[in-house]
């Protein structure tokens, strides 16, 4: 069970704003999936936001296409480091399940919203959310530094 990104963002606007700020800096996140043999795979990707949903467009020959289609479980992490000197390496971490998008209207919306080219042969998945965690560090560079974490979990 997951919910679309937009419903999470309504419930936790500050956590959503942090992701947008990190993506405004460098629009890259990293996606972890599960390979056929059960081992983890990690790839960079550029999330696409359209009509309150978060998507990933995957090249048809990409191995993560098969991971998302067959298992579907994913974890993602935004790029840490925007405020490294003051907040340490910010974390924006989420887990959920991917859904293959096949409806033409939805695919058109994703293609129109993407900041990069979505090829007709690409496979598009919605990344539904089940859990989100953010973290930053207080007292960066000092012996008593500690992480300030915030969690959202689909109830």
């Amino acid at each position, binding site marked *: 069970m997951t919910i679309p990104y937009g419903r999470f963002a309504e419930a936790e606007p500050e956590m959503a704003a942090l992701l947008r700020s990190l993506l405004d*800096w*460098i629009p*890259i996140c*990293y*996606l*972890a*999936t*599960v390979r056929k043999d*059960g*081992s*983890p*795979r*990690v*790839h*960079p990707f550029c999330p696409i936001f359209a009509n309150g949903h978060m998507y990933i467009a995957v*090249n048809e020959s990409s191995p993560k296409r098969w991971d998302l289609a067959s298992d579907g*479980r*994913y*974890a*993602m*992490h935004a*790029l*840490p*480091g925007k405020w490294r000197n003051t907040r340490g*390496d910010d*974390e924006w*971490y989420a*887990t959920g399940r991917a859904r293959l998008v096949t409806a033409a209207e939805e695919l058109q919306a994703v293609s129109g919203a993407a900041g990069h080219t979505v090829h007709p042969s690409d496979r598009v998945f919605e990344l539904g959310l089940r859990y989100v965690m953010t973290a930053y560090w207080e007292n960066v560079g000092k*012996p008593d530094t500690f992480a300030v974490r915030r969690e959202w979990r689909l109830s």
Partner: protein
Amino acid sequence: MLAEQSTMANWRDLEDSAPDLAAAGRERFTRSELVLVGSLRRDGSPRISPCEPDIVDGELMLGMMWRSTKARDLLRDPRCVVHSTVHHRMDAMGEFKVRGRAVEVQDAHRRERYCRALFDRIAWSPPGDFHLFAIDIESATHIYYADERQRGTMWTPAGGLRTWEKAP
């Protein structure tokens, strides 16, 4: 009859066998001083966590907070991916990743060597308990883009180097 080749290697083996690839990896891992580690949760689903890498005495090492979730993942199932991170918007150096198994380092001398290297880098070393893992490498891969083509180089201990090129 050919001797069976090992399917695991450490960072020094990578450097000896594929020095250009190892140099690209060292640059990728050490410039941002940050990697993302893919591991497996108890239920087999993926986790991805930031971590600071160090290459010490020919080994790719990851130090982790005591009983952190990613450390507990690796103690339960050592399969992992260590992935480089970009460090600025126009970063064109590509991505470097190591797939392998995390082996916990308990030898006091190796832990001391790691702590010294860490202190040399950031003027800090763990004051108390911490987990330290060395990565047994199954494959190392560098992917970058040039002339609107994706180019890749992959090394495995048994298969050596392989390169490819394709449209992105």
